[in-house]
């Protein structure tokens, strides 16, 4: 096994081009488990810890994305996301705060979740919910490729990166409405998601974003649920009135979220439970975000 220690991003890209099978390691919170438990022996480890721009974020405006965008370095640890970006990226900040333990959150990052592409990665539902224009910056010596988040996850623990590409950053629009994230685990801390759900209200364009974790081969959005609830809110003029969504629509939203999942029975939970819990989390988080939205309307009035 080789251990590659690029000092700069350009060196990292060059190293990845030269060793396409090298496994990038940043926080190590997934990679090292694989190594310690003898599940994986890559030809080389590509250490990204020395590349300081990966642990920085900036806000700005970017082509192809509306409004202000956070360009989140791939290796910004979850602790910092929760501490520094809970106003701009509230869904991701909440999700980040459920990752592993405080020690894990000091090392783990969105880049790692994306690189591993495990359906249980906590960042995914929040990223999906944040909007279809969330973009993953994949870079190689060949240049930069912006991958829409909906096209990023392609299979169980598989993503759409090319072998010579590394994740430089994720571009996430700053929240224009309330966001929430809920996750099920069978204890009250330090759990891998049995299933998880992210939701984001987007009052600017009248859409609702969702993301489902750990209940399908890949993270996915609940498209029908999104369309259904956006339709309800639009048809009934609720975005403007801030009126109650009502139990029937909330119930239906939950059902559609559950229906969007294709969970399996495994050691962490049954498929039936996952569907059930997704429906409950969908109902609750929709209620929370909508209450927050209506309060903001009232306080703005």
């Amino acid at each position, binding site marked *: 096994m080789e251990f590659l220690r690029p000092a700069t991003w350009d060196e990292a890209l060059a190293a990845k081009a030269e060793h396409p099978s090298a496994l990038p390691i940043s926080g190590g919170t997934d990679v090292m488990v694989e190594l310690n438990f003898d599940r994986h022996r890559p030809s080389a480890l590509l250490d990204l810890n020395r590349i300081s721009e990966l642990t920085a974020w900036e806000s700005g405006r970017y082509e192809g994305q509306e409004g202000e965008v956070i360009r989140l370095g791939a290796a910004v640890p979850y602790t910092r996301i929760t501490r520094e970006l809970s106003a701009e990226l509230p869904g991701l900040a909440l999700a980040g705060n459920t990752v592993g333990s405080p020690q894990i959150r000091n090392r783990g990052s969105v880049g790692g979740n994306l690189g591993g592409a495990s359906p249980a990665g906590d960042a995914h539902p929040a990223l999906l919910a944040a909007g279809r224009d969330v973009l993953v910056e994949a870079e190689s010596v060949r240049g930069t490729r912006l991958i829409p988040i909906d096209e990023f996850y392609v299979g169980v623990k598989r993503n759409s990166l090319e072998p010579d590409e590394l994740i430089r950053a994720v571009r996430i629009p700053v929240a224009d409405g309330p966001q929430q994230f809920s*996750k099920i685990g069978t204890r009250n*801390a330090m759990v891998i998601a049995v299933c998880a759900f992210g939701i984001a209200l987007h009052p600017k364009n009248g859409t609702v974003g969702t993301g489902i974790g750990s209940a399908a081969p890949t993270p996915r959005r609940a498209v029908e649920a999104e369309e259904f609830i956006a339709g309800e809110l639009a048809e009934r003029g609720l975005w403007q009135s801030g009126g109650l969504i009502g139990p029937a629509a909330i119930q239906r939203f939950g059902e559609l979220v559950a229906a969007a999942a294709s969970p399996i029975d495994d050691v962490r939970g049954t498929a039936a439970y996952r569907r059930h819990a997704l429906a409950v989390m969908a109902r609750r988080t929709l209620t*929370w975000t909508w209450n927050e939205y209506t309060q903001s309307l009232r306080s703005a009035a």
Partner: protein
Amino acid sequence: MSTIRTEKNLQNITTAHPDGIGGSPLRPDGILKVRGEFAYSSDMWHENMLWGMALRSPHAHARILSVDISEAVKHPGVEAVMTHEDIPGAKYYGLEIKDQPALAMGKIRYHGEAIAIVAADHPETARRALAKIKVEYEILPTITTEEQCLDPETYGYVHEPDEYKGHASGNVVHSQKLISGLGVTDEVRALADVVIKGDYVVGMQDQAFLGPESGLAVPAEDGGVDLYIATQWLHVDREQIAPVLGLPENKVRLTLAGVGGAFGGREDLSMQIHACLLAQRTGKPVKIVYSREESFFGHVHRHPAKLTYEHGATRDGKLVYCDARIVLDGGAYASASPAVVGNAASLGMGPYEVPNVNMLAVALYSNNPSCGAMRGFGAVQACFAYEAQMDKLAAELGMDPVELRQINAVEQGSIMPTGQEIDAPAPVADLLRRVKALPLPQELDTTHLDVRDIPGALSNTSHGEGIVRGVGYAVGIKNVGFSEGFDDYSTARVRLEVIGGEPVAMVHTAMAEVGQGGVTVHGQIARTELGVEQVTIHPANTEVGSAGSTSASRQTYMTGGAVKLACEAVRNELVALGRKRYGWDYNDLSLVGGKVVSASAGVLVPIADLLGDTAIDLTREHHHRPTVPFDKETGQGFGHVQYTFCAHRAVVDVDVELGLVKVVELAAAQDVGKALNPLSVVGQIQGGSTQGLGLAVMEEIVVKDGKVRNPSFTDYLIPTILDTPPMPVEVLELADEHAPYGLRGVGEAPTLSSTPAVVAAIRAATGLALNRVPVRPEHLTGTGE
């Protein structure tokens, strides 16, 4: 030339403190532990040491057709590869029944059974070498369910009939019947106004001690082996290791290295024989450290159980009879199964007077992981079932569940279903009264929500929705010490001499300090008995006689008792020295504050002056009062040394929509006879309660067709600090006159009643029957097994 890393706990630990028994002096090993200098078994290190590792079967039941080690042997950095063919001595070992091969011979009986071992210069070298060993298997159908185990004609034998040892036959490791009163007949049933039946299941719990199995075997010049090891019982390890190595016991010397928790899981051997075999073969020190994954395959677990109970009672709540059957899955090898069966049968009625009993407890061989000792064994499984029965009965009768228990509670003088009289305090009703009388925790404040207070916590699953509170009670009974006629004993050596002008007592035992604080208590006993401040604890090893196991809540009773006896002998000799020298004829002498004191004449002489250059060095054995085996057919007999009782009240919040649970408070009351160290006593009760909480709501090794599906801390969950609530503890001290200082073993009882109390509280919140532990979100939401 450096040898073993000379951390201080492998030498003497000295503490100076005025506190004798009843005080809470600080642990003598505490400073080393907080500095990170305490040497645990996995910290052992030796120049030129090799790393040992085992190849384990991916199948639960298979015939081994061939093992080809040729490629592994050639792997650079590998110094030895061994299979059963290379074992110089006996091929089998075992705690009670020698039925387990040190390395698999011909057949695999459980997932993870060791087949070959490797010694290499680095763990990674060893792993790569293991990967080069080629094993051909003929996979056999697994024998895993009760039905399959009990029908060997159809489904086969885990051990061939001619291989059976001890009492075992068929696929039954051990069974125990118990009949008392009139048994349970139609006539007896007719005496009951109400009948409650229930089928209960207890999942396979793991000890999940944090320090993985590990140790260092160092070959000695005399052809023997020195083993530095984390274990619960040095001498019984040696008894099992030496024959396999083909060595006399005196050439296998064990020293206790730091033990990172035990809870029963270190009562059986794990890597001991393998490390010694490799050290013998290579002539080099060999260290083995299990990974967490290997640890799940490397030790026995708590027996999963199926329990069928039928209770009859009168309308006013008096129990009339109990008919019960407990089936314990012992897995591939016997381990402690016979003792677990004995406990389940004899304690399976709980701390209740039940006039008529018919009980059968049985442990089966299967192709599941081997099960053996874990905190409270046999009694834990039964307690979950009989306490669920009590709640059901109370509900049926419209009675308060605590009152129902109190009406039927045993007390001093009660006769157990075994016919044994409880001849020491048994304050069962009072313990229940005490936990019930404690103030209840505050209601959940939904106006100032902190998600950390509610089920799901930071996972942010509820902002108050779906939360229902429940309260539940339970009480249990556990035996202390080894039962059924076993002449359990412990040995202590105490040396009193003057060092630097001060009298210093040195206590030497083979007691395994696994975290429980035995070393603290030994210092306290020596101070109390010898009136000294300075006590030195000698490292535990096999140079002194056996201390028995650190298990069965017995160690303070047994080895504490031995230390007391040895101290008394030393004191007598010291006093005799004084009588001889000064012609004392006082009969009221004691040793206090470093002086010999007469109650009538005051201070006579400092101990240091009396001793001078003399060292008094005496060894004593402590035996408890004798017990007898239970009658095979009726279960009758004076089988237990001592009983111990603990009661719990659990308060839980349940998110009834999501099936998530947060235990809000877990209060306990326990009679400890005499709290030799009150701080440690409370620590034991809280720790034991938490393991019971874990079994109630999360802990289970999931096994399917003999395969372990969650051998990791990612998927075998134990309670975190956010799962564990405040735990108020009431400690009673009603002396047992048969025991040293009147003490009562503490460690296990809290593990019993905690589980059923938590589940009772969840039942109260949800109205669900919940006949299985651990309770999973699926059970609370009707979404599957």
